[in-house]
């Protein structure tokens, strides 16, 4: 686990950190118009979604993406938009293998909070998956085989095969036994190295002992 760079494991190299700036001239659909359409909108943001200025906001616990030029609703993302978003975020050049919309029972590598989300798999080294939120169009997760192996190893490391929680009883007892074994091993080594030496020197020069 320690050999692999943790940033690599997190999949940071799988994605492009886009710095495309909001084009002010594109914002022809004003906030006042949005406020009429969505009077309870909260946490309003103006951002770029695949080279298009958009509004992102929450209304009644649902998240929206709206085109800032004409007020068209982009969310929830359809398959075509989701795939183009995933390609936009993905840094590699592998082809899209498959995509699916996950609304329930997320795989172990995706948090429940990120649902609903599109999973887009790429045909590339390490079988990367890019997860795009179906509501916000944002990148919510990126995973490859190395993360999956690392995750498996972590569950072995903490001996919890369900929740990866280091505070489990199994780990407690095994750690306790290991500490006991390590200490007794240390004591044994001490006796082998130091006490034996003392005994040996004497036996070697002892009387007519052989």
């Amino acid at each position, binding site marked *: 686990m320690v050999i692999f760079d943790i940033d690599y494991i997190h999949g940071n190299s799988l994605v492009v950190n886009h710095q495309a700036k909001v084009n002010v001239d594109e914002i022809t659909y004003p906030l006042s118009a949005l406020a009429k359409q969505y009077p309870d909108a909260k946490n309003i943001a103006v951002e770029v979604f695949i080279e298009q200025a958009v509004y992102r906001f929450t209304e009644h616990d649902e998240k929206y993406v709206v085109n800032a030029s004409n007020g068209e609703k982009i969310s929830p993302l359809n398959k075509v938009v989701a795939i183009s978003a995933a390609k936009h975020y993905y840094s590699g050049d592998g082809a899209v293998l498959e995509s699916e919309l996950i609304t329930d029972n997320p795989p172990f590598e995706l948090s429940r909070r990120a649902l609903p989300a599109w999973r887009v798999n790429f045909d590339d080294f390490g079988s990367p998956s890019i997860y795009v939120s179906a509501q916000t169009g944002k990148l919510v997760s990126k995973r490859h085989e190395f993360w999956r192996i690392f995750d498996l190893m972590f569950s072995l490391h903490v001996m919890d095969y369900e929740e990866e929680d280091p505070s489990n009883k199994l780990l407690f007892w095994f750690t*306790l036994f290991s500490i006991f074994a390590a200490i007794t091993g240390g004591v044994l080594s001490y006796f082998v190295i130091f006490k034996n030496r003392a005994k040996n020197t*004497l036996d070697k020069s002892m009387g007519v002992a052989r």
Partner: protein
Amino acid sequence: MLLLKKLHKWLSLLVGLQLLVWLGTGLYFNLMDHQKASGNQYKQTPVVAQVDINRLVEPQLVLSQSKQVVSLKQISLLEHPYYLLTHNKGLYSHFDNDYSLVDAYTAEPVVIDETMVRKLAQSSYNGKGVIKNAVKLSPPYEDIPREQNEVWQVNYADYIQTSVYIDAGSGRIIKHSNDDKRFVDIFFMLHFMDYGTEGSFNNVQIILFSLFTLFFSLTGFIWTIELLFNGQYKVRFGNKSRTLALFDKDLELIGEFDLATNTNLLDGLIDHDIALSSTCGGGGTCGQCKVRLDSSVKVTSAEHVLLTKEQLQQGYRLACQHDATETKRLTLIDVTKAKKYLLELTHSEFISPYIKELRFKVLGGEKLKFKAGAHLRFYIPPAKGISIPARLPDAFKYHWRDIEYFEYEHQACSRSYSLANGDGQIEAGTNELKFTVKIQNAPNKSIYPGVGSSYICNLGLGQTIEAAGPFEDFHAKPSSNKTMMLIGAGSGMAPLKSLIEEQLCFYQKERKETRGIYFFYGARTEEDLLYKDELYRLSRKYPNFFYYPVLSRPHKNWSGAKGYVQDLLTSNINKICQIDGVEFYLCGPPNMMSATINLLKTKNVDATNIAFDEFI
């Protein structure tokens, strides 16, 4: 396999402590209070502003007056809406980010200053402490090592020294930290071996130690498998025994014996008064307790080292490495007359400051026959010992003045001592066994004196002890007219004197042509010259026997040779005789032995003409 075990031992030293650190810190993580460890004891979620969407300034207006942005986001700070402009966005919030803030109602630019930071911190804090100070810092930070942006640190005067970290650009509460959290951080630092400012476990030292630990585990695992295959992990219930057919070296059946299965064959045979030669006492290092078993019996790593391939194929094994469950037949190779005897001490006398002559009577009236130079193995029981012998004659007390007196306890062990019988007692068999034993003393408590020699030299008259033997590894070659040269020092006297007396007696009786017998004996002072008068008497009586005592620290009036016995030998060896046909017999301390053997090698003496009795 040997290399693997060595590797395992050295790795255990290297890895051992770190392994304990890992386990100890790991146990701490397993048991710790996660609420405390999070540092969020006094953390609360700040109250969010009630935003009137109609009062919000048009984003377009804000953007047209500002630097270009990746994102404009309405956020809430101190229950008031602001626009957070992100000019440069890091992949994560702790990566390098470039922000600015604007009031979302008035479009006024806002700079986060100390006053605002103190209020922001307070909005996230529900403890009773007051703010001590607020300081703006640059990375790296001890409490939040991965953070790359400028932050404000607001310190509270509470009992756990809470610090609130606020992003200087966005006003976001990054983290709360306190003494509990810092304590946990020390454990993480130890667990990750993260002694720099990395904030992760991707450092050189942990990679190295992990690799070492991996090798340590692997070598240990392989070793365990090997032990398992050799049957050393068997669980046994009770003292069961098993019947074995025993054969002598001519493959004649001696009989059937019940051997205990909970002990190895070497110890099991002793119960039947069959004592195999062994100087290591069953440790698998001397290779002397050879027997033949069924050739299917597994070969241990000790046997791979000590026995040849041909021997292993023929079924030769070491008795100490196997037990009665593994074989049906056992063939003894060196059938010795060795048996176990109970001996009673009849005489115990200091003949030099450190050497005692001991005589034992064999209980049961049996007489032992053996060749001169033979030894007995004594079974020393667990007992208390003393560093200075009791009943020390006044004349020798001076020599023990530097020895610290202390008592100690020792465990059972076995020690071998050479028989010093001679003078015609041997051929007919004897009921009285004679030994000269040097008490190996220890200067202070850090090291035990020789437990075997101390024990038997402190035995009282009439006390008994068990011993097995005789073992005849060291003895005179078949009689011839070759010159014998005996070289010894200290208590190496015993087997050599026995040999000399055996030879002199034999030639007197047979009245054959006499052979030359030369005895070089080294000691420190005149007091250490054992049996001096007797040896001088013998050299006068027998014209073919020559006695050369040599002292390393003689008194002033000593007229004999000075120095070490090997030095005397070096200067005189060529004067005495033709070296070709000479038989050499050596017994003494290791330095004397190795120096003498090297000398003889340089003189091209054939190794078959050198016999030596080692002090091991």
